[in-house]
């Protein structure tokens, strides 16, 4: 009997904890998005010549950041990436304070579009440009995680 008595409060605590975790996801993703904005901002600054681009021992980010695929209609991809991450950071913060299905869907659409475009750019690095950029790959992993986590949270809310 004593085990049954102690089980109930533990289960309730566990569920409450899980709900709190679920409620905090937009804030976590907003934080990650700010990190992504910093990364993209660095690549953008390097693209326009305001900063020196450090590539590290692996890959050739100079080639990638200066290739014909580093712009969309004259706008640096890194700038688009920074704007996307900042949008996601703002949407994530708003969602935390005032949950809204419409806003959550809009944020997921932006994150997924970013992840798909980033996947395409990574394919170009591998098969067309012939060089890899460690910062671009980091951003690809980051936005893919954000999109996946955002989509999972949405699916749970919808269920």
């Amino acid at each position, binding site marked *: 009997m004593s085990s049954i008595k102690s089980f109930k409060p533990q289960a309730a605590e566990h569920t409450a904890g899980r709900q709190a975790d679920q409620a905090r996801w937009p804030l976590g993703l907003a934080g990650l998005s700010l990190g992504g904005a910093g990364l993209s901002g660095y690549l953008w600054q390097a693209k326009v010549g305001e900063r020196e681009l450090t590539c590290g021992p692996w890959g050739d980010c100079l080639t990638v950041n200066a290739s014909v695929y580093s*712009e969309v209609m004259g706008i640096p991809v890194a700038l688009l990436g920074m704007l996307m991450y900042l949008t996601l950071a703002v949407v994530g913060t708003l969602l935390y304070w005032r949950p809204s299905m419409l806003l959550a*869907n809009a944020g997921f659409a932006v994150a*997924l579009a970013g992840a798909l*475009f980033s996947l395409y750019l990574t394919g170009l690095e591998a098969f067309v440009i012939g*060089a890899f950029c460690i910062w671009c790959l980091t951003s690809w992993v980051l936005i893919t995680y954000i999109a996946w986590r955002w989509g999972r949270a949405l699916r749970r809310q919808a*269920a």
Partner: protein
Amino acid sequence: MAKKATKKSRSGASSMWVTVGAAVVLALALIIAQNWWNDRQAAQSIRAASYWAQFPTEGTRIGPADAVVHVEEYFDFQCPHCQTASDLVVKRLLDEYVAEGKVAFTYRFYPILGPESVLAAQAAYCAMEMGAFWPYQDLLFAKKGMGNRGTFSRNNLISYARQIGLDGDAFAQCLDSTRAAQYVQRQYDQAVRLGLLGVPTFFVNGRQVNLMTWEDLFRVIDQELQAAGR
């Protein structure tokens, strides 16, 4: 209650699919816009190729070999003034003087601004070997690369060659060859022997011209033409 929950679940799932669809459309729009823009840029350089075809060329020289006035420019692809000269001087020179057969113009490599300047010069040599120096140099100048930031990295130079219709593999082989490096080194050594302090430096009929304005160059050319009775 169960019906209500099922209805909520269905509407949630359908809105999720709408969101996924919107994301796919957005990503596709970006990909299409990027490819359209790149194709448009490439088409412009193809038009440039037909423009260059109207002139007689020999290596980095454009214009007739027996022209009464010969203008030479020692240059570096990463030098901002050389990029300006390409837009303001060389194009005018070609349209107003070379097209009439009175003047010939030659580019001489003097890569002094770092490793990408050297690579760009070697790549331009390879384009010359493949009979496409003029459209290729036009494309390189249009990139306005500066500060060794990757615009003229090996892979990008090969990609630009492909953009103007050259065989990328043959171009890459040439770029890695010693003959490209030796050709550029010889021109560099020649510029050093002449005591050139910077780029761009212009010569008209073998005499160095000190420019205060771009107009000074055309004044000297006109004087040379007058002296030759043209």
